[in-house]
């Protein structure tokens, strides 16, 4: 590989070679958030979950909301990147890496929420020792660990050629890159094997990703609680997960584009195309939400209606209508026309969607628990500083993981960009040719002409 090639994508090496003050400020802020979370957990570990706002009957709150939310964000990635790869969408090239990184980092955080939520974290391994496969929690554990494994491989495989580039050209951390590059030299055979492996992982990761959020929804829908026991929950959660995942990806893209001046790589067209995907998911999310609530309303079961009205007009109305506004009204308004200002429009819509999807998870979990079937007084849940701290710490840790990744590995796939220039252009032209009617002599047509003559 010549230095000229590296020179051409110089901008992609900047995050690895230069560290400015902004980086340290960011890490300091994230560190403070993580410290808050760590102190909160320390207090909770010592005194028990009593330090949170949880009680009878609202025994699940922020932690379970965060769990569902973070696992949802993880669908950013691997799923979107796999679909784009398999559909040979050429515009994927600068996006896939970022999507995959978000996925891997956020699954750790999502799975960690369960540990935080346990009354007895010291007994976590009981899930393995005495595991009961009839419990949806075991399905979660299985699906999420499979997804974590698959996503990690799916992040690592396309990273290998880039690590080799860093090993040969960066001059820093050579031992690390040398080990991780697994002796990559870029031969034709190696490329063939790698592309095959990536293709296999891309196919495998899609059903796993779908299974993950399906079984996360099963934690709720397998019970007989009002507004949880719904057959639509599996697909509803998967749609919400992809929705929030795309939104998180767009926000991350905009941040990285801004900080590292990658305007040349992350162009308005990328935001526009992802914006269209986000628009489709907005409509799909609204369709699912509409179907879910209309079914409950029309059936008019008293228990179901208690939860329904608590969301529509009762104590949860601000959160419920904020969710509808953030997830549907605002994104719809912003995304229908992306001809101009595609970046700012998609980014603003995405930020609302991220918040809106967190509210959606909360609106599913807490109102149902707040309205018991028997004549108990209604539960009022309000989180304490412990839950806020854990939540801040979780976000901080997730962002810190991503920031450190950007410092250690290229956040935009260098070799895939190069491949796009060298191979992609020709491939697309050839592929396009196969879509069009064949030029020149066509044997069948030829034969008919003879007959007609």
């Amino acid at each position: 590989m010549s230095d000229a090639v590296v020179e051409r994508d110089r901008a992609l090496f900047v995050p690895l070679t230069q560290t400015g003050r902004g980086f340290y400020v960011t890490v300091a802020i994230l560190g403070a958030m993580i410290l808050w979370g760590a102190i909160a957990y320390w207090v909770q570990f010592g005194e028990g979950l009593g330090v949170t706002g949880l009680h009878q009957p609202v025994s699940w709150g922020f932690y379970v909301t965060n769990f569902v939310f973070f696992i949802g964000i993880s669908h950013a990635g691997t799923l979107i990147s796999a679909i784009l790869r398999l559909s040979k969408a050429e515009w994927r090239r600068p996006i896939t890496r970022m999507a995959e990184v978000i996925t891997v980092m956020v699954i750790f955080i999502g799975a960690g929420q369960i540990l935080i939520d346990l009354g007895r974290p010291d007994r976590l391994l009981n899930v393995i020792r005495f595991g009961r496969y009839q419990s949806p929690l075991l399905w979660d554990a299985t699906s999420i660990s499979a997804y974590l494994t698959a996503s990690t491989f799916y992040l690592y495989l396309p990273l290998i050629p880039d690590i080799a580039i860093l090993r040969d050209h960066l001059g820093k951390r050579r031992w690390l890159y040398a080990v991780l590059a697994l002796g990559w030299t870029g031969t034709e055979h190696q490329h063939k094997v790698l592309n095959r492996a990536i293709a296999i992982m891309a196919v495998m990761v899609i059903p796993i990703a779908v299974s993950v959020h399906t079984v996360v929804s099963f934690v709720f829908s397998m019970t007989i609680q009002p507004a949880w026991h719904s057959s639509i929950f599996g697909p509803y959660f998967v749609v919400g997960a992809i929705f929030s995942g795309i939104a998180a990806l767009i926000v991350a893209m905009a941040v990285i584009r801004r900080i590292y001046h990658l305007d040349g790589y992350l162009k308005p067209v990328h935001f526009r195309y992802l914006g269209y995907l986000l628009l489709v998911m907005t409509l799909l999310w609204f369709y699912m939400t509409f179907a879910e609530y209309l079914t409950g309303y029309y059936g008019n079961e008293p228990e179901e209606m208690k939860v329904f009205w608590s969301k529509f007009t009762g104590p949860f109305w601000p959160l419920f209508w904020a969710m509808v506004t953030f997830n549907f009204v605002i994104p719809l308004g912003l995304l229908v026309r992306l001809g101009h200002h595609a970046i700012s429009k998609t980014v603003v819509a995405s930020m609302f969607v991220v918040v809106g999807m967190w509210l959606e998870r909360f609106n599913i979990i807490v109102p149902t628990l707040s309205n018991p079937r028997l004549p108990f007084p209604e539960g009022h849940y309000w989180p304490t500083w412990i839950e806020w701290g854990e939540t801040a710490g979780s976000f901080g840790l997730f962002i810190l993981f991503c920031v450190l990744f950007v410092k250690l590995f290229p956040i935009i796939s260098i070799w895939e960009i190069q491949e796009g220039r060298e191979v992609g252009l020709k491939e697309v032209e050839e592929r396009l040719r196969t879509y069009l009617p064949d030029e020149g002599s066509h044997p069948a047509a030829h034969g008919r002409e003879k007959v007609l003559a």
Partner: protein
Amino acid sequence: MALWGMVIDLDRCTGCQACVMACKAENNVPAVGPKESARGRTISWMHVLHEESEERTRFIPRPCLQCDDPPCIKVCPVYATYRNPEGIVAQIYARCIGCRFCMAACPYNAKYFNWRRYGTESPGRNPDVSVRPKGVVEKCTFCHHRLQKARERALAERRELRAGDYVTACAETCPTRAITFGDLSDEGSEVARLARSPRAFRLGEELGTRPKVFYLSETEGHRRV
């Protein structure tokens, strides 16, 4: 095999809460204190619900309903809660990981969580019942330790377990004798006879959980007809 069950006559219940206090004393249910109680952390295996509607006001004492098809045991990830062969839904405190899935799944809110380490100084503990640590779920066990004791006594006296040998603390205490406890599988027992009464109904019967706690109420009967 016995099938332990309970009948609570709502027409007799005065809402005096004697059953609640007897249960707390019998089962070492901790007093959580006024602060925790105000935050909704009261633990009350036997809880007297107060139902008020236009047509009536009534009290419903609610122990664990000991469902024959309990939604709580289905979701437990570690076999910490299960239905024993005699129909009592048990909780293994030493195994529970505190995920509270069973609490979310129970349609009767009969499961309670130890949000903190409660009852550190409670005097006069019942030595037959283990004290729960913080972070685990606990619930009404139909005073299962009393069954074990009654069995041992019967064994020592070389006889079969008789009706009335094993009674829960709440049933024993109720001043209006609204609570009847016994073996539902014994057709002739008082509890089985009352469970067949036209006044009998069960909470959330339509959920298919098949509770073994029956309620008797004249008004409920009228409403259902």
